[in-house]
C-alpha cells in the first residue's frame, strides 16, 4: 500500500460528522454488525477511507464495504447497505 493511500486510511471516528444528523453526536459509539461476516463492533472501529470522494467504511474483520457517505452542499447521501444492524443508543 502506498504512503499516499495510507494517509487516506483512517477509522470510524471520521464518520461522526457526516452521520451527525442520522445517528447523533455520539453515533460513532453505536454498535454495528457486518452483513457479510457478522463481526460486531462500534462504528468508530471501522476502517474508513476518506476522499473516495466521500467516506467509505469497511469491516475491520472481512473488509466488506459497510457504509458510504457523500456530503454535498445541500444533501448527504448515505448507504448503510453492508450492515446487518446498527444498535442506536438512547
Amino acid at each position: 500500500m502506498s504512503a499516499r493511500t495510507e494517509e487516506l486510511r483512517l477509522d470510524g471516528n471520521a464518520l461522526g460528522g457526516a452521520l451527525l444528523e442520522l445517528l447523533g453526536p455520539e453515533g460513532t459509539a453505536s454498535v454495528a454488525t457486518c452483513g457479510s461476516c457478522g463481526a460486531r463492533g462500534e462504528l468508530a472501529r471501522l476502517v474508513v477511507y476518506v476522499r473516495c470522494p466521500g467516506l467509505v467504511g469497511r469491516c475491520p474483520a472481512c473488509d466488506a464495504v459497510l457504509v458510504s457517505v457523500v456530503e454535498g452542499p445541500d444533501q448527504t447521501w448515505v448507504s448503510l447497505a453492508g450492515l446487518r444492524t446498527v444498535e442506536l443508543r438512547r
Partner: protein
Amino acid sequence: MAGAAVLGGLTTGWQVAEVVDAVDETPRVRTLVLSAPDWPGHRAGQHLDVRLTAPDGYQAQRSYSLSSAPGEPPAITVERLEDGEVSPFLVGELRPGDRLEVRGPIGGWFVWEPALGGPLLLVGGGSGIVPLMAMARLRAAAGSEVPARLLLSSRSWEDVIYRDELAALADGPRGLEVVHTLTRSQPAGWSGYARRVDEELLREVAWPAEANPQAFVCGPTAFVESIASGLVALGYPPERVKTERFGATG
C-alpha cells in the same frame, strides 16, 4: 447564517463560531479558542468539523480534535501541513474576531471521563496529543486520582505541543506521568528516549496488562496501528485500546 439552521426538523449542525483567542503552541501549531453560541458542551476526546467556503463557493472541510477540558469553551489545536488546504489558513491567517463554520461536538467512543477509571495510558504521536490533552486537563480539573501516564512522541523538543503545561500537569504526587520521546533531534544533554516508539519502549512505559489499564492512542495511521498492536501483544484486550487516526490532508 446565525446559529445552527433547522431544516425540516433536522439540525444541519453547522454554526458560525468566532475565534476569541489564538495561542501559538509551537512554530507550526496553533490553538484557536472559539465562541460558538449553540455549543452544547463536549466530552474529552471528541472532535469538531471545520468548514471553509471560498468566495467562488468551493468548500473544504476537516476534523480537528478538541483540546479544551469539558466545561471550557471549545478549542482546537491545529498543526500546519504545508501543502494543506485548510490548516495553513487556520494556523497562519485566522485572527481573534474572525469567523468560521463548525459542527460538533462529535464522537462517543474515543472519550474518557474519570468514572471510566484506569489506570489510564495515553499515547500520542505529534499532534495526536490534542484529544489526549483534553483528557489530561479533565483529569486535573476534576481532581481525579486515576493513575495516568502519557507517552508522547515528538520530532524535537521545539515540536512538543503544550510543553510547559505538560510539565505543570506532571507536578505533584498524583500528577500526570509524562514520558517524552524525541525522534528526530534532541537537546544537548537529553537523557530521555530518542527513538520511535517500539515494542521495548512500550513495554518499559505502558502499565502492565494485569492492572487492567484503559489506553487511548492518537496519531498518524501508521503510528496508531503500531502502538495498538504493540499494546495487544503486551496483553491489553483490544477493547481496552481505543484509537483515533488522523490523515495528512491538512
